[in-house]
């Protein structure tokens, strides 16, 4: 039998005879390959953490706002707990809010708190946010808000040119400029579109003011756009009236290309214009349905008494898409103190005055109307709450300086 047998030694010898294998490449080539691969690896090393960091940043931005909401709601819960002494007030707020929710006046909710409403349906949260809203959702400019600024009021037509909405902006006073200069200057910067109104200013006209006589000369180009259609004409009158009323102008002279007079379509040829202001009723105007704050807008004929105006304010003005500014369930008597230019409003039985946003706006409409009828202050009596938003009903309330505050860009 010839079976081969191998010893360790034989195997070892055989293995040591294994051929030497050589790398035939040039060392430079190898070195180059190495450096290329090392650099590549460095890039890879760099890419992953960057991607991770980017992802983390995205997550951060998604999560953080939610986190803040939770914190807010917690704080508010704490606040509510702290205020347990004044719990009467809170429960009234709550009542107001619940009732509101029932009435589904959801316009306000939708735009004011677009996602918290969905994500945190907890009532606590909403109460917090809502009552904050009431506090600063006043629309007009009040004396204490001005702080040394100049108030400019521009009356801007709505998109359908059915009415003129007075909008007030605050601008810094300048020693070298008169109010009229500021008025002319800022006419350029108005954001009418953003405010849901018609792009109207600057007017296509030249203004010059004779400061002695307070007579304003408005010079139109021959092809001015203010004569097409009666609607735009009447709104032009209103716009001019409201705008100029805040500038204390007594008379306006129209010229066209320097020649006296101006062709105003149906109204014919006009040389002079005496602004009609005062004695209007104020209504709510919502430029689009999602708006929470209304514009509070004067509309209609001049009225002979303020009670007439208040009566009118309970009716919607459908033609101009205006909403009644005094709800049907609020009744009051008015008493006039002509000498002190004060108005006293005594709420009747069953008038439920709540500390909420609609009531606040109703009060503002009343104040603005009072201002239009030349009153200086209003005292409200018989209300079942002490505070409505910023107003303390125990005290006399001064009428606003101007309506519909907006800020310039």
């Amino acid at each position, binding site marked *: 039998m*010839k*079976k*081969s*047998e*191998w*010893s*360790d030694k*034989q*195997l*070892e010898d*055989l*293995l*040591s*005879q*294994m*051929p*030497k*294998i*050589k*790398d035939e*490449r040039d*060392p*430079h080539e*190898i*070195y180059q*390959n*190495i450096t290329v*691969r*090392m650099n590549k*690896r460095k890039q890879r090393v760099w890419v992953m953490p960057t991607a991770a960091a980017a992802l983390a940043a995205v997550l951060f931005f998604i999560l953080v706002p939610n986190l803040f909401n939770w914190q807010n709601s917690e704080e508010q819960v704490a606040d509510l707990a702290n205020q347990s002494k004044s719990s009467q007030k809170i429960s009234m707020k709550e009542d107001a809010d619940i009732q509101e929710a029932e009435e589904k006046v959801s316009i306000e909710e939708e735009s004011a708190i677009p996602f918290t409403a969905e994500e945190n349906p907890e009532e606590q949260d909403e109460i917090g946010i809502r009552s904050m809203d009431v506090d600063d959702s006043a629309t007009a400019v009040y004396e204490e808000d001005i702080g040394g600024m100049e108030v400019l009021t521009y009356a801007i037509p709505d998109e359908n040119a059915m009415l003129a909405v007075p909008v007030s902006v605050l601008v810094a006073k300048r020693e070298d400029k008169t109010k009229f200069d500021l008025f002319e200057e800022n006419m350029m910067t108005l954001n009418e579109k953003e405010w849901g109104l018609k792009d109207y200013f600057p007017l296509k006209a030249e203004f010059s003011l004779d400061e002695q006589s307070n007579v304003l000369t408005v010079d139109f180009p021959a092809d001015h756009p203010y004569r097409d259609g009666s609607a735009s004409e009447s709104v032009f009158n209103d716009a001019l009236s409201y705008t100029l009323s805040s500038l204390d102008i007594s008379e306006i002279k129209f010229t066209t290309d320097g020649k006296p007079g101006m062709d105003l379509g149906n109204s014919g040829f006009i040389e002079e214009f005496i602004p009609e202001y005062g004695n209007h009723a104020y209504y709510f105007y919502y430029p689009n349905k999602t708006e929470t704050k209304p514009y509070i807008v004067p509309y209609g004929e001049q009225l002979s008494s303020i009670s007439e105006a208040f009566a009118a304010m309970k009716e919607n003005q459908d033609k101009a898409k205006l909403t009644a500014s005094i709800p049907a369930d609020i009744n009051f008597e008015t008493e006039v103190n002509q000498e002190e230019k004060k108005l006293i409003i005594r709420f009747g039985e069953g008038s439920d005055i709540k500390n909420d946003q609609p009531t606040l706006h109703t009060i503002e409409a009343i104040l603005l109307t009072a201002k239009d009828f030349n009153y200086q202050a209003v005292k409200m009596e018989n209300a079942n709450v002490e505070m409505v938003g910023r107003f303390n009903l125990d005290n006399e309330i001064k009428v606003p300086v101007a309506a519909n505050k907006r800020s310039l860009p």
Partner: protein
Amino acid sequence: MDSVFDELYRKYHHDVFQFLFYMVKNKEQAEDLVQEVYIRVLKSYERFEGKSSEKTWLFSIARNVAIDSFRKQKGWKQRILEKFDWSTSQVKDDQPIPEDIAVQNEEIQQIYRCLDQCTVDQRLVIVMRYIHEFSILETAEALGWTESKVKTTQHRALKILKKQMEEMMGKEGMENEKVRMER
């Protein structure tokens, strides 16, 4: 060129390359892997403390590179299949024999093929101990093993090689005049 690379190349390049070649049995792959060895070395050269000799340190890196390449070669599929596959021991050598080996005598070719039958550990020991003529101590250092582990692995490896060589010779009906010799 980097001075570290230059020095290592001069001293050890062909050794390391040959070691990798006998481990993976493929020249192109060995070329790739030797580059990988340099990359790892250059990155960690500062950390080389001189505890072991430069040579064994370099070989320990080469060994890690070789083992990593085996792991990479076997995809996850193969690794799963392996769990169920009872015939894994019959690893087939589908690679053609490289030229350097093919020109050698029959016995060398035989033993080259038989290397496949060893486990990776056994092959490491065989290549280091007999082809590179490392001492037991050097092998232990390069592999990070104890000397006795090197010895037992070497013993088992030789046993397998012996068995395989005998089988192969028998199968191919080779006449072998060699008579039994003492171990």
